[in-house]
């Protein structure tokens, strides 16, 4: 048996420290090649660290939420054969064996680490996170409760290690009597609680997490007016901490100037419906978004100063010729901003296809780093949930964000007569340090012009 040490990989972009946001294994676990061991997070993304080998976890290099230096020992595995390490801190017996092996196999190279660790970018920098699904968000949420120290150890030779996820639907909840009793005292029905212990056992911490998630179900009897007691402290780490920092920084540094205008989208909607009918089955179905994207691209030609990034430490505003359009997309893990690169070179169908592809990649955690960064301006839309007005927070260091509100049928006076029109607000925020109100207003009015007379989107 040898020892294989996996070190914190260099995640590029001059990153020196990486935060551990989730451990997927614990000491004693048997891991297979490519099995995800941990999620680590940089300023840019959450990265899954897979195992390059089969083995048994002997120790973890850090605690949850701990910032670890690149190159620090992330995890230590016991493996068949020589392993890659003969450190003194390994158990004496196996260390001796490992040394013998490595001496024979690789003289002088006993402390090498796998140079190549495939990484998958799971989550980009985000603006807002709304957790909607228990399943995919579980690692991040369950993380604070999972002890970083070994809960138990197990013999190493059998293949089928126990799984540590929750139980299948409809299965009887598993909890120790004290946990059961506390759940009843708290008015929690155990069948709704996710168990993170061995074999899906529900633990005290799971009850706390359950309450924190607000999934408390009304118990039998009239609990509608029950007095509630207690509080839940959740450490803000990982993705949440990044979000918190980014939001605070954006709001602290950027004097937001928010401008709301109503757009008559009756014609645009009619066009969209017609286009979809005409190209049904041949081209991707258009939503309003690709048309708005086109309008933004065209408006930027007239007001290039909004398509910019402001390095406010260096006091340099960089405007860009290409339009790399960030599209805020809701995913189960939170709001992500995949980037449609060179949006200026795409027709609406191409944009629609690219948005769909990126959204799917973001949702399934397969988006690449470059697909999740480098935007020069951002559009945020909550679709039917868009409300009538929003005050979007700028995706710093960009200088503008365009918020799309929902479409409303409403009576409008047109040519002296009252008619039913489809209207929609655009709520947009600008960095008032570099974008004057006049420019912002003209930029939005230009977009409005394109959207209200949609032929201009195509004829120019």
């Amino acid at each position, binding site marked *: 048996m040898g020892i294989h040490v996996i070190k914190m990989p260099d995640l590029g972009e001059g990153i020196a420290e990486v935060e551990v946001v989730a451990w997927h294994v614990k000491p*004693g676990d048997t891991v297979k090649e490519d099995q995800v061991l941990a999620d680590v997070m940089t300023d840019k993304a959450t990265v899954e660290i897979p195992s390059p080998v089969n083995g048994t976890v002997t120790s973890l290099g850090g605690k949850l939420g701990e910032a670890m230096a690149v190159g620090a020992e992330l995890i230590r595995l016991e493996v068949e054969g020589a392993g890659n390490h003969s450190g003194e801190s390994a158990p004496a017996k196996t260390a001796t064996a490992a040394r013998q092996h490595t001496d024979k196999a690789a003289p002088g190279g006993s402390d090498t680490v796998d140079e190549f660790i495939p990484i998958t970018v799971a989550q980009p920098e985000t603006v807002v996170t709304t957790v909607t699904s228990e399943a995919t968000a579980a690692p991040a949420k369950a993380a604070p409760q999972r002890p970083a120290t070994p809960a*138990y*150890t*197990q*013999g190493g*030779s*059998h293949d*089928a290690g*126990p*799984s*540590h996820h929750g139980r299948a639907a409809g299965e009887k909840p*598993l*909890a*120790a*009597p004290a946990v*059961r*009793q506390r759940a*009843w*005292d708290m*008015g929690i029905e155990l069948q709704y609680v996710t168990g993170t*212990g*061995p*074999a*899906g*056992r529900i633990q005290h911490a799971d009850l706390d997490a359950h309450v924190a998630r607000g999934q408390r179900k009304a*118990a039998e009897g009239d609990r509608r007016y029950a007095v509630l007691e207690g509080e839940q402290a959740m450490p803000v780490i990982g993705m949440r901490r990044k979000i918190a920092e980014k939001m605070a920084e954006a709001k602290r540094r950027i004097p937001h100037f928010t401008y709301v205008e109503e757009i008559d989208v009756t014609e645009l909607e009619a066009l969209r419906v017609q286009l979809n009918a005409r190209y049904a089955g041949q081209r991707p179905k258009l939503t309003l978004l690709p048309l708005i994207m086109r309008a933004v691209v065209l408006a930027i030609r007239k007001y290039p100063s909004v398509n910019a990034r402001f390095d406010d430490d260096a006091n340099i505003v960089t405007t860009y010729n290409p339009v790399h359009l960030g599209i805020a997309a809701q995913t189960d893990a939170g709001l992500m901003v995949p980037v449609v690169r060179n949006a200026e070179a795409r027709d609406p169908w191409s944009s629609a296809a690219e948005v769909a592809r990126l959204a799917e990649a973001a949702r399934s955690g397969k988006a690449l780093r470059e697909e999740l960064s480098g935007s020069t301006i951002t559009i945020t839309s909550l679709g039917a949930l868009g409300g009538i007005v929003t005050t979007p927070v700028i995706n710093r260091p960009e200088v503008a964000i365009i918020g799309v509100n929902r479409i409303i049928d409403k009576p409008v006076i047109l040519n002296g007569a009252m008619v039913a029109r489809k209207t929609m607000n655009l709520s947009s925020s600008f960095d008032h340090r570099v974008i004057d109100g006049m420019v912002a207003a003209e930029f939005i009015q230009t977009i409005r012009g394109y959207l209200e007379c949609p032929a201009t989107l195509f004829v120019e």
Partner: protein
Amino acid sequence: MQPISTHLLVIGGGPGGYVAAIRAGQLGIKTIVVEAAQLGGTCLNIGCIPSKALIHAAEEFDKAQHYASGSAIGISASAPSIDLNRTVAWKDGIVKRLTGGVGALLKKNDVQVINGFARILDGKTVEVKQADGELVRIRCEHLLLAAGSEAVELPFMPYGGMVVSSTEALSPETIPQQLVVVGAGYIGLELGTAYRKLGAEVTVVEAADRLLPAYDAELTKPVGAAIKRLGIDLRLGTSVLGLNAGGDGVRVREANGEETLLSCDRVLVAVGRRPRTGGWGLESLQLDMNGRAVKIDDQCRTSMRNVWAIGDLAGEPMLAHRAMAQGEMVADIISGKRRHFMPNAMPAVCFTDPEVVVVGMSPDEADKAGLDVISANFPFAANGRAMTIESTDGFVRVVARRDNHLILGWQAVGRGVSELSAAFGQSIELGATLEDVAGTIHAHPTLGEAVQEAALRALGHALHI
């Protein structure tokens, strides 16, 4: 007659009733227990405790006899004798000490005990006929029914004369020459074995085709072998027809259909117990029933508000520890706590020789539940401690889920394995996996090592086999 008022009225001072009352007293609930006979119920007076005392006495006597004929250990003794009256008096002393203890505990917790026979008038009113014939009426907010169970009688062979139930069998004046035991369940086998060790010729008649039909064949095999060694005549697939005309034998129909006569001077009928539902006005409440038992939900609520039922009265499994747990829970609920009766497992022990203990699911039960399980045995033949107590029969068996190794059940058969029920129950109730038990250091040399080894074996790496 001035009615007495109380918050909780418990009918029956058995394990369920007295535990509920103690707990209620601890919680400051005004509580009255009505008991017609002695506190402690079947368990303390005519069940668990006296039977274990008699079994112990029989074992000791048997051991002494064993020494009289020479033993491998090297001990020899002259032929022992037993003074049955003193044995019964010793047993009664234990019972008295325990029932007296229950009375003291109730008193300590401010529970009022009324000795008398209760009759339900309605869901909140009970009339008690005291020993002196005086009637007292009790009004209550909560009525807890804990009247227990009674031995089932065979209609064609009623109790009386030489036909006895377990109650009488636990206080024998003499040991019969020839005893016929009807029923090879745990009561019949426990007492049949004790009587055999005390010198009776014992024939056990069982209608099913194997003994202890509630348990799987692998588990009961060592019991069957031991019974055979003891010289007990086990007649499986045999049904009882009744006493013969002369009153000195039992007519049975054997598996091959042949009718034979088993001559005997005593018959112990141990064909089960049934909830004691008659004769105390229970029917006036018109409660929903579950067969012969009072129907309850997972909080021991009956179909009538604030009327609760626990223990044997509420049906199978008729076990004292179940009744106690239910009683404690009901008191908690009445005090305003939210509780449910949902244990992961209910331990059950047969004090046969060797003992049998089951907690949770057997492999067959797991299969029937559609679960993919692994199970493993560890035989006591490979356990050092078992050898030193001359008892290498039997094994410990574990049943666990294949996917996550959650332990679903434990079974064991062997001398002294009843004490392993604590470890079994804890591991299942706490949701242990095979790795948890395998990774727990078990003291050497003990029978408990077989528990750890069974878990190790299920994981594919037992050390001592």
